[in-house]
């Protein structure tokens, strides 16, 4: 069984898709298998991580089979609505 990565917002554009299946293992190893451009974007200081729906720190993170890790860039600002 694999682990799943989820990319939100502009990170999905960089990753070429909103989700990606990866082999379980350390986040460091998973990032190393990506292209450097995507890995650098995912490691940005304003990108937050959610493991199975809970915000987590990336340092030392290891994904188990069935885990879902989401990469969350800063949310968009401004109002899109009138009221």
């Amino acid at each position, binding site marked *: 069984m694999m682990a799943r990565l*989820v990319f*939100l*917002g*502009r990170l*999905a*554009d960089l990753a070429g898709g909103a989700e990606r299946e990866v082999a379980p293992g350390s986040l460091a190893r998973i990032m190393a298998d990506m292209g450097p451009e995507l890995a650098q974007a995912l490691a940005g200081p304003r990108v937050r991580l*959610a493991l*199975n*729906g809970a*915000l987590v720190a990336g340092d030392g993170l290891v994904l188990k089979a069935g885990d*879902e890790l*989401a990469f*969350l*860039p*800063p*949310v*968009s*600002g*401004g*109002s*899109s*609505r*009138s*009221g």
Partner: protein
Amino acid sequence: MVSFLGQVRADSSQQGDDVEALELQHYAPLTLPGMEALARDVLGRWALDGLLIWHRVGEMAPGDPIVLVAAASRHRRDAFAAADFAMDHLKSESWFWKREKRAGQWAWVEPREQDYADLARWGQAGV
């Protein structure tokens, strides 16, 4: 019953008034618990007979409804405050990524720090 209906703006968050479409993306494992927690918070602060918090995601056109909050109470003041509070917090506690289409091109909308200003009215920091 006080209700707030928000509609997609034509000029949206940046300059110009040429937005053809808006797309909101969310991450359900974060968004839904956050909305449920907000609803519990509102229900704990005011005596309400009912509360509705609804937000669209996906692609929308200018003028489309995008958000609806409604609060029913025996007391008008409670209904107004609850709906106002819910809107302030829904805006800032929800994780939404937004892109706009102009002249056929989609572009992501950048974050703005000032979105947290409304929360100061309620005496707490944005989560």
